[in-house]
């Protein structure tokens, strides 16, 4: 069945595809070729591609069946060239031809398709270009429109009177209400007209006023002349009244003179002068302010407008020249001059006298270094009673250290103005401390009192001038007075300590038992180097508690063969910062607070529990009380020391102190705490 069907199909194909044969023929003939080609193109139009595709599929299928039939036949032993095979071969040839034709047609169709697409594309491109042109034109027009819309007229900047006001005030020939009411353009023009009118009027008025002003000025001058002519007469009256003032003891004149001189003070000294005067009048009657120095020189200094700027730049240039020319021999002398110039102080200085209750006076001399823009202070103490010379007290009232560390870490050895560093570099000053003797100390509080502020931290609230000075005046004056008093108290105490007497006032009697056997044997001053060299003070210096500004002393307490050395650090801020004791006991060998827990406990008894020893405020008796406490503790230490059972004979130190227990706790501490009314010793 299938075989027959295929044959039929093949036949149909052959009938339909008559053209390939024609093609073959056409190629063979050659001449009528063009006609043929055209006919094929025409044929192409007539054919349906869908149909062609089906035809292609059919011929492929029948080719496949034919091939398989041939194979079957051959497999069944058909001979080469046998009729059946031959027939099928023919048929397949026809099919091949058919396929070729179809292929050609497909190619042509493709080409035509491409051409058509290209054509269409070109058309579209032309249209697109037109569109672009139009769009550009539109954009340009829009821009023009917006430019027009944004146009600003100059009159818009003029602040015109409001519309209502305009209609009210302007005369009708300018306002023309029936024209302008409905036409904003006309309205604006009218308002501008009105503005012009008004301005003209005002300009006239201005001229008039100027003229009257001149007239008045002239009359003022005349009156002034009259007043100045009165001055000599008044002066004469003042002169005449002087004896009366003196007689009535009213120092108006003197105060006035001082204010007159004060005008020539440099600004920082002036701030200090005003503030100290104010403080003295308001709070502290014992504060006295005076100005000393050469007034004429100060006047000369303050008169010419300072052109130091030029000077400086000149000197800079000179210096550079020097450097380039390398004229060495003269530079040394010039540098010296420059140094002197840089460190020059203002001819006027301020003297503050601070009187204490006991009659001693603290004199403070304030100077202003003009080129460094800092203030310095020199001090002197004059006492009411003659101080008997205590050797160890030598440093106490020395001007150099008296005011050291009035505020924490304010040693007054380095200049507080950071700018000075560069100035110093220029003239070769290594350290400001070398000039302290001559110039005085630039403590930070001095700058503050003068209203000078050199910020270190960005966070600091910056206040300058009078308010800064006023903010610290009271506290500083209190500190100054406290410092002098504590130094004077120490001075007195040292004098008796050197004679091995520990002064204990009646208010402090209750802190100690009545009978103290240990005695102070020696009280001397030592240097910091000596202090540092002691083996039992290492922990203090390691903890940073032994500073350069501190004073150092050695107290030796003795009882029998026992000898207790105690190295003392005395802060310049005593009694606010208490003295620090380090102990070393030589008795049956050497022990120190570092190795012996009981000596360590004694140290903490005087160093840590110092509040009990403060005495009446402000605690000027702290040091002597600490020394007596030390003596008591040594008594307890020696009396409670364990008696070696192996050694015969009486104890060196019989037990006299009443103790509840002699040792306590894991580190076997002795009872160092004295309980006052009962009079026994207990543990902390």
């Amino acid at each position, binding site marked *: 069945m299938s075989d027959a069907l295929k044959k039929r199909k093949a036949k149909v194909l052959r009938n339909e595809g008559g053209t390939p044969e024609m093609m073959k023929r056409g190629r063979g003939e050659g001449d009528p070729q063009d006609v043929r080609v055209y006919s094929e193109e025409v044929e192409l139009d007539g054919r349906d591609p869908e149909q062609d595709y089906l035809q292609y599929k059919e011929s492929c299928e029948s080719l496949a069946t034919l091939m398989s039939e041939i194979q079957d036949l051959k497999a069944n032993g058909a001979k080469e060239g046998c009729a059946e095979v031959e027939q099928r071969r023919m048929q397949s040839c026809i099919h091949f031809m058919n396929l070729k034709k179809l292929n050609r047609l497909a190619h042509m169709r493709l080409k035509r398709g491409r051409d058509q697409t290209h054509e269409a594309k070109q058309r579209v491109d032309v249209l697109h270009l037109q569109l672009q042109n139009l769009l550009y034109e539109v954009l340009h027009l829009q821009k023009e429109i917006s430019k027009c819309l944004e146009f600003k007229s100059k009159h818009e900047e003029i602040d015109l009177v409001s519309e209502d006001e305009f209609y009210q005030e302007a005369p009708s020939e300018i306002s023309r209400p029936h024209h302008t009411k409905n036409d904003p353009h006309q309205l604006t023009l009218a308002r501008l007209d009105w503005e012009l009118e008004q301005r003209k009027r005002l300009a006239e008025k201005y001229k008039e006023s100027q003229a009257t002003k001149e007239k008045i000025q002239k009359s003022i001058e005349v009156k002034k002349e009259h007043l100045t002519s009165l001055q000599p007469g008044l002066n004469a009256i003042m002169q005449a009244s002087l004896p009366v003032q003196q007689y009535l003891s009213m120092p108006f004149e003197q105060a006035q003179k001082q204010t007159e001189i004060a005008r020539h003070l440099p600004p920082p000294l002036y701030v200090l002068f005003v503030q100290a005067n104010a403080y003295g009048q308001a709070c502290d009657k014992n504060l006295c302010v005076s100005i000393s120095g050469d007034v004429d020189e100060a006047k000369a200094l303050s008169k010419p407008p300072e052109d130091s700027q030029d000077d400086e730049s000149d000197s800079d240039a000179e210096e550079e020249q020097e450097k380039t020319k390398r004229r060495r021999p003269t530079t040394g002398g010039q540098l010296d001059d420059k140094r002197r110039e840089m460190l020059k102080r203002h001819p006027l200085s301020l003297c503050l006298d601070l009187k204490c209750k006991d009659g001693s006076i603290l004199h403070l001399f304030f100077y202003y270094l003009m080129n460094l823009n800092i203030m310095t202070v020199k001090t002197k103490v004059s006492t009411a009673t003659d101080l008997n010379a205590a050797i160890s007290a030598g440093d106490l009232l020395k001007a150099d250290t008296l005011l050291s560390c009035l505020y924490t870490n304010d040693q007054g050895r380095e200049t507080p103005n950071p700018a000075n560093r560069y100035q110093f570099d220029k003239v070769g000053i290594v350290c400001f401390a070398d000039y302290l003797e001559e110039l005085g100390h630039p403590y930070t509080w001095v700058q503050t009192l003068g209203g000078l502020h050199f910020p270190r931290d960005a966070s600091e609230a910056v206040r300058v001038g009078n308010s800064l000075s006023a903010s610290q005046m009271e506290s500083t004056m209190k500190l100054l007075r406290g410092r002098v008093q504590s130094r004077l108290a120490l001075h007195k105490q040292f004098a008796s300590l050197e004679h091995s007497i520990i002064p204990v006032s009646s208010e402090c009697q209750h802190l100690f038992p009545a009978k103290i056997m240990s005695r102070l044997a020696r009280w001397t001053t030592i240097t910091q180097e000596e202090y540092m060299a002691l083996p039992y003070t290492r922990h203090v210096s390691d903890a940073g508690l032994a500073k350069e500004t501190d004073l150092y002393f050695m107290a030796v307490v003795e009882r029998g063969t026992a000898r207790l050395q105690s190295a003392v650090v005395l802060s310049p801020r005593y009694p606010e910062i208490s003295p620090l004791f380090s102990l070393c006991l030589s008795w049956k060998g050497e022990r120190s607070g570092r190795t012996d827990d009981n000596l360590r406990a004694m140290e903490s008894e005087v160093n840590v529990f110092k509040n009990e020893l403060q005495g009446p405020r402000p605690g000027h008796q702290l040091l002597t009380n600490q020394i007596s406490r030390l003596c008591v503790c040594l008594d307890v230490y020696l009396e409670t020391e364990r008696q070696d059972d192996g050694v015969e004979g009486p104890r060196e130190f019989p037990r006299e102190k009443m103790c509840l227990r002699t040792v306590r706790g894991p580190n*076997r501490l002795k009872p160092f705490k004295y309980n006052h009314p009962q009079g026994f010793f207990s543990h902390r």
Partner: protein
Amino acid sequence: MGPVELLHMSVFSQSFSPCGRFLAAGNNYGEIGVFSLSAALSPDATALSQKPVLTFTAHEGPVFSLLSTDCHLLSAGNGEISAWSWSELIKKNVKAVWTKRPNYKSSLEIPEINAMTMNPRDNSLVVGGGDNNVHILDLEHGTFKSVLQGHSDYIHCVSVREREGEILSGGEDGAVRMWDSRTGRSVHCIEVHKYESCARPQVGKWISCLTTDSDWMLCGGGPSLSLWHLRSLSPTSVFPLSGCQRQAAFHQDMILAVGEGPFVSHCLLGGEVKAQIPCTPQSLNTLQLNTNSTEHRVLTAAGSSDHIDVFTNLSYRAFSLSF
């Protein structure tokens, strides 16, 4: 706390938290400082992490003894014992869970408490101190259930032998007393200073450190530090350490001891001193090994200074915690 107070500070006691991450230390001002070991031991530790995370005043007098139970920190001050919850302390809440006072007879001076130790057998606390007696606090009921009387001077140290049910106490009178924890009777009394091999009459006779490990006991103080065999009650080796020893501990096959002198002594059981490792404080009061946490396994030692030396390796000081 000012620099002068720090200069005169002594640390008397230490205790590790149950989790092993914190260390509590008590000083002579009655303060307890809690340090974070995990912060101080971490690789990015700063100077700040060596400061206490919490400092509080626990007692009026010095804190001579600290002890950690499962969840509490027990601290002993002047005649009183306070308990603080570790979990609250870590959250920085400072409030004593309870405070108890043993019944003291004398009234003039409150006796101090020098040593405390746990007796896990009946969950009781053994307390020794200034009134010459050992007090036993029943932690279940919170009452003092018995008093062991016998010492003639104050008690420095106590120890518990759990298996035998024995309590040991050493005191200023130079005696080590052994007590039966059930009957409260004194079973034995060793007067260490009467044994010639360890006596040091020039120093004194008090016993200031006492530790036990099964049949062995370490004791020292005025007499030299010595290792005792308890069944025969005889000293087997004496350690040639100068100065009074304040705390000793068995560690593996070694003995660690601290006392006068700025070092931790490593001793062999035979009686030789193997090494003396230098420390910051001039004399040491306390020594603790942290066994509660493997990652923070350190040895800490403290004494007459505000520093607590930390040893991550037993052979050198790694760094110091400080108040």
